[in-house]
Every structure is written in C-alpha cells, then in structure tokens.
C-alpha cells in the first residue's frame, strides 16, 4: 500500500512539476495557406453499384458529390444519390428505395508543398437525410395448418444521421481524381412503423443499427473554371 501511495505521489509530482511542463498549445503553423483547387469538383461514387458484394440482398445505387475549396484546406461538400435494396427469398419479397443527400465539409490534413499539389488526406463531417419507401411484396409463413401468404402496402419514411469521414483524393492526371473514404454513420432520427419495422435506410444502411460503417470509392473531375479569378503560380 505504501509503495502505491509513493508511486501516486511521484506521478502527481511529475505532472505538476514546472520543469516537466511542455507547451502543448503551440502547433506548427501550416505552410500551405493557399487555394490549390479553383474549380468545382464533381464525383461519382463507383462503389454504390457494387454494394451487393458486401451486403445482404441486391443493394445498388448511384451517388454524385460536389466539393469546392472554399478557404485553404477546407472543402464544403454536397453528396446526393439514390439507393435500392431488394431481398427475395422463400419467405419474403422486400423492396426499399429512396433518395438521400448529405452536406458537410472535409478538412485536408496533408500539407502541400506547392499549389499544383492537389492530393489530399482528409477528415470530414456530414449531416445526411433521406426520403424513402418500403414494401413487402409478399410473405410466406410455413405452417402445419397450411401455408399463410400476404402482402403489405407501400410505406413512406425518412431518417437523419451524422457521418464521420476519413479519406483520400489523389490526382491521377490533370483534373482527374480517384479516392476512397471510410465512414462512420450515427443515426439521429428515424420514422418507423410497427409492422414491419423499417429495415433499410438509403444512404445510411441497415436501419436497425444505431451505428453503421461504410466504405466508398469514387472518381472525380475538377471542372476547370476559375470562379475566383485568381492566378496559379
């Protein structure tokens, strides 16, 4: 017990000692305080049409993104798209589809050496919402007393969520980019039903999960028009 008390005292001394104090508040200033991308970058998410490879059911969609370097290293982003999920097996024929939009920003962490260095490694945040519908086209319950079948009408719903993004965008040749991102999605609000529960949220993923992970792979083109009228060195 004495040894523990002594160790604790030593730790306390080390923390409070003025000789050990480090100036953590001072950060090295960025040397790339310049706009490197003058135009508007338009992206197409290639991974949306391949989602059935890592998700259950036939899930596919299309997504476009638009971003611009508003101030050095800060890129406001709008992403909009639609998704559809259909599941068809012996007991259920389910379909859900809808459109979604996310807006937010990306912050570039990669320090550029010159203005032509367009590659970025970024972290970002998004607010997303969707408008969707789902339908049970047919269900079957096997029963000793005779199989039961039924169907349910179309139900409209919506949801809101927040996203945390980490990704890269690399310029593969002039004004053309490729990049991937990983995303953590946190559901904030969901219109739900008693029968059946909302199963799929376009743009978000499985509705029963409060938190979803996602990956995306996109190609981008920077529209070569300099709306600021600034000159590149």
């Amino acid at each position: 017990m004495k040894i523990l008390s002594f160790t604790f005292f030593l730790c306390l001394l080390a923390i409070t000692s003025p000789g050990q104090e480090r100036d953590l508040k001072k950060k090295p200033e960025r040397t790339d305080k310049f706009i490197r991308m003058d135009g508007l970058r338009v992206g197409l998410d290639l991974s949306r049409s391949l989602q059935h490879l890592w998700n259950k059911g036939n899930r596919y969609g299309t997504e476009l993104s638009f971003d611009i370097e508003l101030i050095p290293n800060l890129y406001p982003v709008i992403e909009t798209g639609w998704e559809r999920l259909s599941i068809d097996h012996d007991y259920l024929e389910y379909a859900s589809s809808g459109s979604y939009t996310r807006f937010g920003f990306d912050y570039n962490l990669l320090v550029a050496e010159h203005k032509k260095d367009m590659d970025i490694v970024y972290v970002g945040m998004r607010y997303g919402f969707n408008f969707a519908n789902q339908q049970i086209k047919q269900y079957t319950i096997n029963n000793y007393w005779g199989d039961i079948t039924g169907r349910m009408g179309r139900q409209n719903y919506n949801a809101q969520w927040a996203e945390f993004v980490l990704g890269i965008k690399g310029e593969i040749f002039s004004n053309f980019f490729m990049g991937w991102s990983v995303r953590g999605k946190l559901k904030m609000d969901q219109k739900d039903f008693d029968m059946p529960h909302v199963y799929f949220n376009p743009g978000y993923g499985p509705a029963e999960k409060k938190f979803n992970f996602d990956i995306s792979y996109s190609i981008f083109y920077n529209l070569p028009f300099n709306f600021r009228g600034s000159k590149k060195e």
Partner: protein
Amino acid sequence: MRKIFYSLFFLAAMAACQDLYDAPPQALLEVKITNVDTLSTRIPKVSVYGVGQDSIWIYQEQTNIFRLPLSVEETTSFVLLLDSIADTLTIKHTNELIFESAESGFYHEHKILDVGHSLNRIDDYEVTDSMVTKNWHENIELYILSLPAGDN
C-alpha cells in the same frame, strides 16, 4: 497444387458471396404431461394430429413434453393419442403477426384464451403461461389418468 488452391479460393469466394437466409422462427405451444397418480413415473407414448389434417404431427413418441403448432384461426383442435387412448384438445387463442427481419420474414405469436378437452385420459389442465412465443416454454400442463389395470 497451386491450381487446386486457386480453385478452392475461388469456390470459397463464390460461397461467401451467396446470400443465406434463415427460415422465420415458429411459436409453438408447449405441453407438459403429468400423471395424476403422483407415484406413477410412466412416460406415455404420444401421437398428435390436427383435427381435419391428413398428416400426423407427432407419431408414437415416448415423451412427457411436446410442442404443437397453432393455426391462425381463433380455435385450434388436436387429437391426442396417449398410449393409444384418444382425447381432443381444443385451444382458443388470439394471433399476432410478428416481423422478425427481412432476412427471415414473418411469424405468428399467440395468446391462449381458453382450453377445452375430452375426459378419456386427460383429467385436468393448467395454463402455466398463456403467451406462445418463439422462445419455447411450457404453456399448458395436462394431468392424465393412469392406464387401466392390465394395459400396462
């Protein structure tokens, strides 16, 4: 060897891409049989079929616990053959449609409202839990009479 390895890898990858779906759960009524004669430890031979059904649900099974499927009508009736002595068991119940998931689909849960039976081998009953859910548990305890002397 390498070709076999690649073929196996390809097959495994294909299998991984296949969607597998489970059948929906089923809520079954669980019946426990107890001898009225507390000294008797005899376990009856049970056969069960639904009234109006062609197929037998349980056939000649030596057990004192068995499960029965309820219909989606208000009343479900079974013929129970306990050591070849026939009794009718009628359950009056409600039905509720439950959505399990898009992967497995729907199923019904039931609530027992009333139980009726003939008095050949069955002497009495007790509803131990009226909720018939996918988590199977004892719902009804049937008290049965001992076999007449000479039938043992």
